[in-house]
């Protein structure tokens, strides 16, 4: 084989390209580069209704993503949804104890996320703590229903 050296070089180049492509896909295209799922601390929050929230939905403060929803389950005793959030360890000891959590929708039809609003307490939330003040997701049908009922009430007294 005369071209053996060139063949080896080209094979090396091919493998390099392929692994480079995989690396590009993992770091640039997916969420691997931005946030490590196993790091950080856990917080819990209870909601009456979580709407379309899903595991891995973003958790934000002032619009900046600081974590993700790690699990959602239903508490059969309290009849409430329990949302478990994993917050990046960069933001440990920064959220006051009276922080409130609400479920918002990004855009009119976009995905749902949890927005945290820091309160004014001196003590900070720790791993495993629960966010006390929560506001459920707005369900579009409920709002429309309320609006229609209020309109009907306006019309009734003749």
């Amino acid at each position, binding site marked *: 084989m005369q071209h053996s050296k060139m063949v080896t070089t080209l*094979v090396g180049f*091919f*493998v390099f*390209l392929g692994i480079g492509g995989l690396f590009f*896909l993992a770091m640039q*295209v*997916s*969420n691997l580069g931005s946030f490590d799922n196993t790091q950080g601390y856990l917080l819990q929050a209870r909601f009456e209704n979580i709407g379309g929230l899903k595991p891995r939905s973003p958790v934000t403060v002032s619009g900046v993503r600081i974590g993700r929803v790690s699990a959602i389950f239903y508490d059969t005793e309290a009849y409430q949804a329990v949302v478990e959030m994993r917050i990046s360890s960069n933001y440990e000891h920064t959220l006051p104890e009276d922080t409130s959590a609400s479920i918002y929708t990004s855009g009119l039809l976009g995905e749902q996320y949890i927005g945290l609003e820091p309160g004014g307490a001196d003590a900070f939330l720790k791993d495993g703590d629960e966010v006390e003040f929560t506001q459920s997701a707005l369900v579009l049908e409920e709002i429309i229903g309320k609006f229609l009922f209020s309109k009907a009430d306006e019309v009734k007294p003749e």
Partner: protein
Amino acid sequence: MFHRLGEATLNSFEKLGRGSWFLWFTLRGVFEVAARPGLLGAQIYSVGVLTVMLITVSGLFVGMVLALQGYTILSDFGAEETLGVMVAASLVRELGPVVSALLFAGRAGSALTAEIGLMKATEQLSGMEMMAVDPVKRIVAPRFFAGVVSMPLLAAIFSTVGILGGHLVGVGMLGVDDGAFWSQMQATLDYRDDIFNGVVKSLVFGFVITWIAVFEGYDSLPTSEGVSRATTRTVVHSAFAVLVLDFLLTALMFGDF
């Protein structure tokens, strides 16, 4: 009539059985291949490296077309910013593994079948057996493992080039915001659910295509007509297998059961 139906059924089962035995003997050749990496390198060159150009150009154009088509639909809903998500998700999950597997079957699978079939027709394989060299280990196994190794790399190159092509058209020509293109993509695609599953898909496709290719070559009638038929069968059967397996794998990976 029933006789012929029964014969066809038994023949296809027999072929499946022979194919499985053949796969087992090929897989046992892994130690031979590991002991002589030069053989594997030469085959990765002819199976993988020579396919890179085809994959790159096709990936570029597939990505560009996706961006063009996606833009016209998404702009109806005022959601041009999600173009990056659409291009990347469809490439990484489906088109990357599937289209590169179909191209791989046409470019490399047919070549493998023709090569091995001709070796059989010109009695090179029998000659090797006479010299106490096992042709399955010396000829078939390096080609098989080269195909299995090359396929995921080719699919990754295809998806990468496709996303860059989508970026070229979406951001460069149609004026989608560059930041939104990448950030929405990163927010939506998951490295385990999307990227890793895409790699698993292409590994399975590579395994099946090269298995079909080397087996059809080895099993072909040692005549020029036999080799040509075996080559056709390789391309047709691997295309079928890829499309059916893609459905099954998608149902397993992205379905809810």
